[in-house]
């Protein structure tokens, strides 16, 4: 297995540039791989791509997801029961890439990567056409091994900022990240909320001063009103738990994909500036 050589600007950068050129904030849906099953994840991602998702976050299920709220925890449990592993998520990414979906970011915890070996994982991610990797429990201080290996494979390492990040940490994260910066909108775990935190805009602007990378906001975004407010100052929004809950509630329904397209369009409309 050899990794493709790193190209110029990656697919992630191009996706944000395209949205910006169209005067839009990018829409980044999140789903857990293998929930309700892998075949359905493929059709869900295709539906999201067709409904205008600019990037896709694919969650790798893990047994002990400390950063996730109950909705995403349940999705991970279902996926694990289906036998989904980091390896099958890489294979899924390769199939999706071959089918022409938006750029794919794997959202994962570190232990599955650690177990596979950061270099083995990074090579496989490159070969499978994964565009970015976000490891929720791997701060930049611990990311050295993985970061070097991903860079060699032309895969972005997306890092997170939180409301608790000090100015020093904002600068560290912005210096080390590639692809885009993921700003966590509030302290806490993943899960849909109704409001927009007051200090969010200031947080995004602080990151903006430290980097030229695109800045996406996630955690707690589920409503068009929130999307419109955040689109005024961010480059992308991540919608996770609202979508995962829709999948949970309609897993057996043949209408699932059309309901997902509808949610995607509802959230995409207010992103136009």
């Amino acid at each position, binding site marked *: 297995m050899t990794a493709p050589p790193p190209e110029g600007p990656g697919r992630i950068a191009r996706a944000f540039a395209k949205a910006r050129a169209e005067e839009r904030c990018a829409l980044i849906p999140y789903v857990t791989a293998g929930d309700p099953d892998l075949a359905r994840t493929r059709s869900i991602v295709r539906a999201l791509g067709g409904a205008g998702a600019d990037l896709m976050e694919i969650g790798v299920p*893990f047994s*002990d997801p400390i950063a996730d709220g109950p909705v995403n925890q349940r999705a991970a449990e279902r996926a694990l029961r289906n036998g989904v592993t980091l390896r099958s998520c890489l294979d899924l990414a390769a199939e999706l890439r071959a089918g022409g979906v938006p750029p794919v970011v794997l959202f994962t915890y570190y232990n599955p*990567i650690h*177990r596979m070996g950061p270099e083995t994982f990074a090579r496989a991610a490159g070969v499978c056409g994964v565009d970015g990797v976000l490891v929720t429990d791997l*701060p930049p201080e611990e990311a050295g091994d993985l970061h070097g290996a991903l860079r060699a494979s032309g895969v972005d390492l997306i*890092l997170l900022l939180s409301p*608790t990040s*000090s100015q020093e940490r904002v600068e560290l994260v912005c210096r080390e990240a590639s692809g885009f910066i993921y700003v966590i909108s509030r*302290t806490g775990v993943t899960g849909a909320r109704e409001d927009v935190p007051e200090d969010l805009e200031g947080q995004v602007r602080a990151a903006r001063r430290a980097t030229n990378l695109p800045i996406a906001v996630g955690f707690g975004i589920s409503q068009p009103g929130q999307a419109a407010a955040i689109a005024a100052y961010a480059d992308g929004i991540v919608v996770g738990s609202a979508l995962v809950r829709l999948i949970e509630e309609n897993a057996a329904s043949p209408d699932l994909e059309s309901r997902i397209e509808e949610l995607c369009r509802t959230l995409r409309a207010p992103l136009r500036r």
Partner: protein
Amino acid sequence: MTLPDSRGRFGPYGGRFVPETLMSPLQELEEAWRSARADPGFLKELDHYLKSYAGRPTPLYRADNLAARLGGGTRVYLKREDLAHTGAHKINNTLGQALLARRMGKTRVIAETGAGQHGVATATVAALFRLRCAIYMGEEDMRRQALNVYRMRLLGAEVVPVAAGSRTLKDAISEAMRDWVTHVKDTHYILGSVLGAHPYPAMVRDFQSVIGHEARLQILEAEGRLPDALIACVGGGSNSIGLFHAFLDDTKVRLIGVEAGGTGLDPGRHAARFAGGGLGVLQGTRTFLLQDTDGNILPTHSVSAGLDYAAVGPEHAYLRDTGRATYTHVSDDEAVAAFHMLAELEGIIPALESAHAVAYLLRDGGGGTLGRLVILNLSGRGDKDVEQVAGRDGTEVRRP
């Protein structure tokens, strides 16, 4: 060199593998702990509470009946942490961390608990220092340790059942971390063992090392010499590190940690991380843990809720690598037999956790194999386990 290093590493183990939201709070905690342990006022206050509230120093008791049963001429001393307030060594750490929380201006503390001992010790100091308190406990453990659940509620703590995963200690830690990441501004997380992200493994060790410092003075006074071996059970590993640490430089003193062998070494039937585990990252730290080939954490089992955990403290992994400490395991049945034996021989009912250390001594310590002088850490008392052991023995304990 004193470990951990500036990144919280013990060789390849330890570190700080947490979401970004917890990085600044962990840095603040590390600074607060460093400044507190260099502050004579803080140390004096901690010492005051350890003595006048927790009942330290705990006795070092020469257990001659146990030694006679063992044979081989080995003298056995029990470090009586079971006699500390709340019935286990856990109070040493919760007093230290509660004082630290107060120093940092936190008004709320949270904790995980397995057997309930750390939960009770946290609820106790929360009452003492007027801090709001929530304790996360797996539903399976709440069933096993119903008495401790009520004790925590008596002390004014909210006990939050955790229904995720295996419903034991690991899941309680995950849920406590989720609480902390949400309420980090006013809340301090009193982690109960030498686990988690830096500085917890080093900070909890510091607060527990009072066990070994006392034991070292006591054995020198009683016997005029150092022991040949120290024995302690290892769940996360705080009572064992607490006993071992004052003896690390006494290289002739053997350090022996005893893990939970459960009902056998097949996956899901034990918590012997060094026997069946590999290197991984869980709940903030890189250490030995029980996982499958894809990096998901395996379920564990032990008759003792306090040892029923998939990972071991990173410093233990380091001590094992360097050969300074050795680790072994005993089965559920051996631990329960030792629970009975100590009660009958010495009139001391040990916690099932501590009974693992006693079981190892009885199984492998005969014929003088551990030398002439041994200290065993009796980390907790067994009142909490009486109902469970009675059930195993086919006796139902009913209140009139």
